[in-house]
């Protein structure tokens, strides 16, 4: 805080009672009441956004915004009544923006802009940009709730950039679908309230335990998974479309360097990434198949490594503590991926569920690493205290590590798991999990309207080799294949006794070769078949060779 400008009543001196005497002149409570103007402005903004095209286009969204506005107004009036009744004085302090808020917010904003530009629907609209007014509304709501809670509990509300990283962070991972958009506001309220009420003493100061956004995301993820309501959010779509942006790993890496430079979180991010990479490499060496389906570290996890777990207030402060925290996060994401998958839950939530638990373990980690004797080697490695120079050294190691991963083709670019023929062969060779992955991939592509994929899934249910035989399901998938004009699917409907297979059509290839989401609809067929050949489709290689 570099400067302080105060409006309204001067704050009472530290340590003095804030309650006005019974016979105090009426000017004191009256002058305190102005503070509700701030949340009321937020309520007006919420109401105004509810009238925008984006909100009116989906009735529930408009109602959600209006409901949030009404809640803010009601709480503001309640605060006003309470202030007048008790004579308690409250004020708002406008401070300079804190670096840890605005730098993080700027990095997050740049990710929204970059990713949002490349996530484009076939009708030309960009869902992230369409979300902008609703993100603004969430910001207004977060400011209002933050202010109201502060003003109820403390003599002043310090206005800063704090809500920006919270809202941006939440929206980089989870949006509730329009029909349930009111839950987005509930999630924000939970995050803010968690920050306010769930606190402990750490290093002699009362601080919040949980990272507000990670707490809200983790709690809601848990509820969604436990209630099998994960379809209420766009979470998996957000995670998968991050890869639409070219060189997204490099982009996140560069943005992360900025955060690392200012806030010395390098050790945390680096150890988490190294843990994931190492465990993934070990899994591949043992099983012959990638652990994460089509990436070494999922993009959204990579994003989380930089922006979700790096809040200095809720993570260890010592270098060894950061290392332990990073390793635990990497290991927990790795483990949760399998656990969620085994319960049939979307694995997308792996990156969100562990953070609150890790926040809770921070004091334990602090205690554990406090007993580690500091040796000269530790000092040479900059692990004794996080000084600027040591952080720069760690950053250089991280840069070298990322460069190595990139050179090995483990970040941007094609991944082994992008290739369906790879999974088909791995399944034939009975490699662990390969058949399950193959079925999952083909089911996903069937949902995306690939008739070939639907026919393949139907075939698996007919044959009963890689999944339990199920005639009705097979018939359902053949029906879908046929309705998608895939002729083999129609023939299988007519004669379920014999299974007809065929190669993917050009339209199917446009879906199967997207590597996470590239739009290949306009790719000329010769290029498409060349790409298919590169992905291991033998028939495409023959076609390419035949065309030469």
């Amino acid at each position: 805080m570099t400067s302080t400008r105060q409006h309204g009543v001067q704050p009472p001196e530290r340590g003095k009672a804030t309650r006005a005497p019974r016979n105090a002149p009426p000017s004191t409570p009256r002058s305190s009441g102005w503070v509700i103007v701030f949340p009321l402005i937020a309520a007006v903004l919420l109401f105004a956004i509810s009238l925008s095209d984006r909100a009116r286009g989906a009735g529930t969204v408009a109602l959600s915004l209006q409901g949030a506005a009404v809640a803010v107004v009601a709480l503001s009036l309640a605060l006003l009544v309470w202030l007048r009744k008790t004579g308690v004085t409250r004020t708002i302090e406008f401070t300079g923006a804190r670096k840890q808020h605005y730098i993080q917010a700027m990095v997050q904003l740049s990710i929204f802009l970059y990713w949002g530009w490349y996530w484009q629907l076939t009708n030309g609209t960009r869902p992230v940009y369409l979300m902008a007014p609703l993100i603004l509304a969430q910001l207004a709501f977060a400011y209002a709730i933050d202010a109201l809670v502060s003003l109820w509990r403390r003599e002043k509300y310090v206005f800063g950039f704090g809500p920006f990283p919270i809202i941006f962070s939440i929206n980089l991972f989870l949006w509730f679908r329009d029909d349930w958009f009111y839950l987005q506001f509930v999630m924000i309220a939970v995050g803010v309230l968690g920050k306010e009420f769930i606190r402990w003493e750490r290093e002699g100061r009362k601080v919040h335990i949980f990272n507000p956004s990670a707490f809200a995301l983790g709690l809601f993820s848990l509820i969604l998974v436990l209630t099998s309501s994960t379809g209420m959010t766009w979470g998996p779509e957000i995670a998968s479309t991050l890869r639409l942006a070219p060189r997204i790993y490099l982009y996140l890496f560069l943005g992360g360097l900025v955060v690392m430079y200012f806030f010395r979180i390098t050790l945390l991010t680096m150890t988490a990434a190294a843990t994931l990479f190492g465990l993934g490499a070990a899994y591949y060496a043992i099983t012959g198949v990638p652990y994460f389906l089509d990436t070494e570290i999922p993009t959204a996890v990579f994003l989380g490594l930089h922006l979700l777990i790096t809040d200095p207030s809720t993570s260890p402060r010592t270098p060894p503590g950061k290392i332990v925290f990073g390793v635990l996060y990497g290991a927990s994401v790795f483990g949760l991926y399998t656990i969620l998958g085994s319960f049939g839950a979307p694995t997308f939530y792996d990156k969100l569920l562990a953070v609150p638990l890790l926040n809770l373990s921070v004091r334990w980690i602090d205690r554990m690493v406090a007993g580690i004797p500091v040796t000269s080697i530790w000092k040479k490695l900059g692990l004794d205290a996080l000084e600027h120079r040591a952080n720069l050294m760690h950053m250089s190691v991280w840069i070298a590590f990322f460069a190595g991963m990139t050179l090995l083709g483990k970040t941007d670019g094609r991944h082994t798991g992008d290739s369906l023929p790879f999974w088909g062969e791995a399944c034939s060779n009975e490699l662990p999990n390969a058949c399950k992955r193959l079925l999952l991939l083909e089911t996903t592509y069937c949902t995306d309207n690939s008739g070939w994929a639907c026919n393949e899934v139907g075939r698996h249910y007919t044959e009963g080799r890689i999944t339990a035989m199920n005639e009705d399901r097979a018939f359902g998938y053949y029906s879908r294949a046929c309705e998608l004009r895939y002729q083999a699917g129609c023939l299988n409907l007519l004669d379920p006794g014999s299974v007809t297979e065929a190669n993917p059509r050009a339209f199917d290839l446009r879906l199967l070769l997207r590597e996470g989401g590239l739009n290949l609809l306009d790719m000329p067929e010769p290029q498409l078949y060349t790409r298919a050949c590169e992905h291991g489709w033998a028939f495409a290689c023959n076609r390419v060779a035949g065309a030469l």
Partner: protein
Amino acid sequence: MNRASYTTRDETGMGRKPRDRASMASDRMIPGLRNSGMMLLSAIVLGSVTATPGHAQAGGPPARGAPQATARMAPLPTFRADAWGLPDEPQLGFVEISGGPFLMGSDPRLDPESFENEHWPGDGTMGTVDLPTYYISRYEVTIGQFRAFVEATGRTVDPQALLAPDSYPVIFVSWPDAVAYTRWLEGEMKKSATTPPALREMLNTGWRVTLPTEAEWEKAARGTDGRIFPWGDEEIAGPANIAGRSLTPVGYFDCSAVCANGLEDMSGNVWEWTRTPFSGTGYGGVTTAPDLEADALWVMRGGSYADALNLNRVAVRGGADPGARRGFIGFRLAITRD
């Protein structure tokens, strides 16, 4: 049927659904027909999408201006609620078509209205097809019959398929919907005591309830004498719902006395799905293996209430996207031996 009733798969995948299926599907009637040189047919078929809704006069007589058809004098057919809504006849409406040869296709010298894809390869006229005995349903599958299937299986279908009274032909059914219905009915008939013993015996010894092939359909519709319409060669609208404004209950026009095999609505009312893949060339007497890498089209036969007389000739071959659910496409059943 208006275009809004057309089956669409709208884009819901936030970028995951790469093309507008509705616009694709609206093109789908055309390619097979264009290949066959039947642009006229395709135009008329598509045109009927925007025609007066088929159920506008559900339950009433055909609209004024309907063809010079012979209004039914005999009572309307009745259906058995205890037998999946099938006709109240000894064989539940299945009519035997005796095995033997018949003349298939069109000879342009005898039938100048014929389209190119009705002409057989070679001399470009008609050919002889020899079929074993099979059975075909006298009426188009009704809404009542299809409703029994939907209620029994819980299958998700286009809600428009079940809007009209039970005696009307079911429409807004895709090709897989039709196949699913035949599969279900076969299973029911095999195990139920309601099924006439002879039929049940057949079904338990290798016969199947299915859609007719286009050859089976054509033989049933024209008999063995090569006639152009089910009622003969005269280019007059016979007892059929042709060039009208709306659908009629199945068998509304009594054709039993004059039409081949006593079948109803083989011309008009609704186009009928078959189990023959569509190819732009003539039938040629054999069903060649379909091109598995080409987009599927399946043959539909019989014209519809909204089509002109020449499109209701028994040799007319239409092709449609198997996913198409239209207000002028239904189906009828066959029982054949594998």
